[in-house]
């Protein structure tokens, strides 16, 4: 193992911070993130509300911590969805070739011909704007990119001798795919999944910001920013902290993603 570079350390630290805030926020927050206290609304950062309160007197820090749990869990489930779907379809398309491949890739390319944000919006208009709708819409929107990467990897792998050997030994296609193809195309999958996590988190926040995400009063960073808009001049901290959380999380993921790519994908090293 090479020693960690400063940017990797910063990336890992940021991710660790966000994840621990998410885990702690799920079980414990300084105040109840949903408790309304109108006598104490729009309080500036200080004591007892370290980061101030919002227009309903709810504690910002508590809401940020609860939102960290919501955002990271939605992103994790969505990425897992895209990885499972993408790996399955990509391996089948790349391994089977022929008509199956063409059918899968035709639908896939059509989906890729939409910007992913827009695809998510289109799917959201069917699934409805709630937690499960978002996971389904984002998961479907992000699957095609994964399919493409896995298929590309499988296409070159399937011509290699060890795959041929597995086939000659009489192994079933499913066994060959799971035992031999899957482990060998994990590197690009992990690289893509890392960047995808950041992208999903950003899209989820953007959807929440647009009012099409997890419905209030449940806090997400995006809907906290959206409700901060009318109060920006009186209480700028309402708008500053949630955005800072999103930015720091994304920064962590981007730095971490670069580090992962350097390690797993030697061709990209140093670029």
């Amino acid at each position, binding site marked *: 193992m090479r020693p960690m570079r400063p940017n990797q350390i910063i990336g890992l630290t940021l991710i660790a911070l966000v994840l621990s805030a998410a885990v702690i926020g799920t079980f414990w927050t300084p105040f109840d993130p949903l408790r309304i206290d109108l006598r104490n609304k729009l309080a500036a950062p200080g004591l007892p509300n370290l980061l101030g309160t919002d227009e309903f007197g709810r504690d910002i820090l508590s809401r940020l911590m609860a939102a960290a749990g919501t955002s990271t869990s939605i992103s994790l489930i969505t990425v897992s969805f895209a990885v499972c779907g993408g790996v399955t379809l990509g391996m089948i398309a790349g391994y089977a070739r022929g008509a199956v491949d063409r059918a899968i890739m035709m639908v896939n390319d059509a989906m890729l011909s*939409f910007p992913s944000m827009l695809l998510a919006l289109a799917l959201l208009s069917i699934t409805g704007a709630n937690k499960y709708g978002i996971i389904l819409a984002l998961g479907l929107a992000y699957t095609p990119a994964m399919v493409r990467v896995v298929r590309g990897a499988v296409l070159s792998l399937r011509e290699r001798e060890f795959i041929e050997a597995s086939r000659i030994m009489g192994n079933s296609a499913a066994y060959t795919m799971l035992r031999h193809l899957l482990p060998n195309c994990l590197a690009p999958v992990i690289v893509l999944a890392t960047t995808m996590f950041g992208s999903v988190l*950003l899209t989820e926040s953007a959807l929440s910001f647009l009012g*099409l995400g997890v419905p209030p009063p449940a806090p997400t960073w995006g809907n906290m*920013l959206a409700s901060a808009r009318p109060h920006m001049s009186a209480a700028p901290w309402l708008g500053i902290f*949630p*955005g800072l959380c999103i930015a*720091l999380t994304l*920064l962590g993921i981007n730095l971490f993603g670069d580090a992962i790519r350097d390690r797993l994908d030697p061709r990209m090293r140093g*670029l």
Partner: protein
Amino acid sequence: MLRFALTRLLSTIPTLLLVSIAVFGLIRLIPGDPASLIMGDLADTAALEAARQAMGLDRPVPVQFLIWLGKALTGDLGNSIASNEPVLDLVLRRFATSAWMVLIAVAIATLIAVPLGMLAARRQNGALDLGIIAMSTLLVSIPTFWLGLMILLTFGLKLGWLPVIGYVAITSDTKAGLIYLIMPVLTLVLHEVGIIVRMARASTLDVLRLDYVTHARAKGLSEAAIMTKHVARNAFGPTWTLIGLILGNLLGGVAVVETVFTMPGLGRLIVDAIYARDYPVIQGCLLFVAVIYMVVNLIVDLLYPIFDPRVTAQ
């Protein structure tokens, strides 16, 4: 060249067909009567019955699709439930707003980012390079809607230099239009610079490793001549493709930036239509954006040989 253009043009047809099937299917996937989805909840029975006839709901689904596709091809995307305006007019008007903002922003971002990326590659691992990478990673990590809010807070609310709310079309009043465009464009530029710099740097590094660059150096050419005459053109290809993708992406949905700066753009139209369950508008927008996305990528591909004449050979 013409052959390349034609094959490329024809290759978009199957995708367009699939996209239109998907957009058509959208309405069928939502529970309820498609006619009442299209006409809205307030339409009377006679109007609904007329709509059912016109959409061919009493006939097989493929026939319904052909009816719909035929209308869409002639520019009839139906009327908005909310405003009763023809969807195509609405989409085109909103698109003009988004397009001005996006085109200006991407042009500025390219002019800033490509030289910066090349400069960083030229001094790989030097202080300048690390600085540029750090800056671009930071810019990429800041969500545009937050960046926009912070710009609004700084220049609009605290300093009071620029108008916070409202919008004037650049076509009706150039000066006022430009003033309203400053903050959204600045937001987009900062974000896109971050993305484009990374790509420009990476592709320049790829080219700098090649033998012909070493040869040019051995010939005694100045570094400036090598960068501008030999490296720039070869390194710009991948960046150009990325710019096309960014352009297509942005033209279809800068909903968040439009929301922050209350601009009546296409992205905002889609979001509002989803709120209001205005299905004809949702369908029209999706179809339009898919076409725009494809047209932009087509133009990018067709212009590619200007930078890289080798491409047409394939």
